[in-house]
């Protein structure tokens, strides 16, 4: 929440100001699309630890944060990244090794939990997951729930429909709201004040953004307000939700940003190889995250040719005929 006119900041400052050890955070995007990677790499570089991460199917960013040891608690619906990682590799390892407190929901449920937080209600109902282990198996202990005021007292609640059979429902599942300390999203366009315009699918970014105490927006293009306000029907987040606007071209790289660039299959395949092994993964971090001073530096390592290769075609919004093997 901030009504100021100019919220433009450097990514280093934005992360330092809003993301603390132990913060509850959420990140935008879905699997290999529009993950706020520049911000994620900066979190890793700043060595911020003990984060509680709320994720639906946020993909690449989740895996890198887990791999770097930034996350201590995770609420998640899906840890996969297409054929590059049918199950996200560092996520899989961390859970199998018992190194992560985690709790499973579904994608819709996580989206609804962000929505509940965004609209200021303690819960939202759904019919999804009745009869399943999503309801039965809780990841966070009763003790943790009692001790930590930032975790709801119950994972979910099944309730009989108080309106009898109204809405063709006998029961509903109530899902507790999420209000992260910080949400970070990467978008196509923003102005200095924070009005946001995304292109293509919005995933759950809008709900995540509005549910959060602080909101960092990284953007491909920092544009004049006039451009966004001349057709405000196309904007998705009003400026007062936004606390920091950071201009980072290719800020979602190596994930995609619709109408700007595609995901980089070479990077993601390489990442898979590094991620398979603990020692190799350290090398990955040393080379691609700790070893670069900022996101532009990473792009420099990748090189112009690769960046050119993933450039979006203006008709379709993705890189036509990109070799994605």
């Amino acid at each position: 929440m901030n009504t100021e006119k100019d919220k433009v900041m450097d990514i280093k400052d934005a992360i330092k100001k809003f993301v603390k050890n132990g913060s509850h955070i959420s990140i935008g995007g879905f699997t290999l699309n529009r993950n706020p990677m520049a911000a994620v790499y900066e979190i890793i570089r700043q060595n911020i630890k003990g984060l509680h991460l709320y994720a639906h199917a946020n993909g690449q960013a989740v895996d890198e944060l887990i791999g770097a040891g930034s996350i201590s608690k995770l609420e998640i619906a899906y840890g996969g990244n297409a054929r590059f990682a049918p199950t996200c590799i560092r996520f899989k390892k961390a859970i199998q090794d018992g190194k992560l407190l985690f709790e499973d929901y579904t994608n819709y449920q996580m989206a609804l939990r962000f929505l509940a937080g965004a609209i200021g209600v303690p819960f939202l109902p759904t019919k999804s997951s009745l009869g399943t282990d999503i309801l039965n198996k809780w990841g966070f202990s009763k003790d943790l729930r009692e001790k930590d005021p930032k975790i709801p007292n119950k994972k979910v609640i099944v309730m009989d429909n108080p309106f009898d059979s109204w809405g063709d429902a006998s029961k509903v599942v109530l899902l507790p709201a999420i209000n992260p300390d910080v949400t970070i999203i990467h978008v196509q366009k923003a102005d200095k004040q924070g009005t946001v315009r995304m292109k293509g699918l919005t995933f759950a970014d809008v709900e995540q953004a509005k549910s959060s105490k602080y909101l960092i927006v990284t953007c491909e293009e920092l544009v004049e307000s006039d451009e966004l306000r001349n057709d405000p029907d196309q904007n998705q987040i009003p400026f007062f939700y936004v606390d920091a606007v950071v201009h980072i071209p290719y800020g979602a790289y190596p994930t995609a940003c619709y109408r700007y660039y595609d995901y980089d299959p070479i990077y993601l395949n390489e990442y898979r190889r590094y991620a398979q092994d603990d020692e190799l993964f350290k090398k990955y971090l040393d080379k691609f995250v700790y070893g670069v001073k900022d996101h532009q530096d990473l792009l420099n390592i990748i090189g112009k040719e690769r960046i050119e290769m993933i450039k979006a075609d203006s008709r379709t919004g993705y890189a036509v005929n990109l070799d994605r093997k």
Partner: protein
Amino acid sequence: MTEYTLREIMTVVAAREIKDGDIVFCGTGISMIAAMAAKHINAPNSVIFFETGAIDSKLEELPLTVADPRVMYFTSMNGGLTDSFATMQNKFIGKHVIGILGAAQIDKFGNLNSTSIGDYLKPKARFPGSGGACDAASFVNRSIIFIQHEKRKFVNKVDYLTSPGWLDGLDGRKKAGLPGGGPSVVITNMAVMRFDEKTKEMYLSGYYPGITPQKILDNMGFEVDISRAKEIKPPSHEELIVLREKCDPQRLILD
């Protein structure tokens, strides 16, 4: 007869399940190709949509995930997760949606596990988790399940019930409060299984040419009725052409 791979026959069999006018909730991988193939072959008015919010995408290239930028092109609408799942939960639309799901384990009532094997908190094997699968399996009226035919996958009891099938059979779904119908078909690398109309128990409905019902049973952790099984019609030349040339010319998924 044209040569075909197992993945190809599985895809074609799934495509045949999609009826014209169906709204297809599509996952990643093979299910996407099946839905694309159906539109080209038997269900031109079916609509593909993705949990990420893309409705009726023009798939000029095969998306690798439901969030692939390729799903965002030339849609009827680009929305988000809350839109897409609500479409399935919607009482009027949901009835026309068919889901395509995968899993690591399945039981005889079509309940699926895509979460983990072993203890939930410290599992032997961790999978991606529900994603939107449990949501779709909860909401839609019919669903198609893809799974490899292996003993460790067809189990008496799933280690984690991620996506509801027919639960404990009979009117189990209704008792639990689930709106939609359960799974209608399971497509494996050997066979097609369906569910008894009354008991909701899995039975062998069809087997691929060259596979015997006994071999299928040998690869399952539980017994099923094989008395209703017939050999499945192999993919036609036309079906294969569509698959290979229109759906996945790069063989990103079919290989």
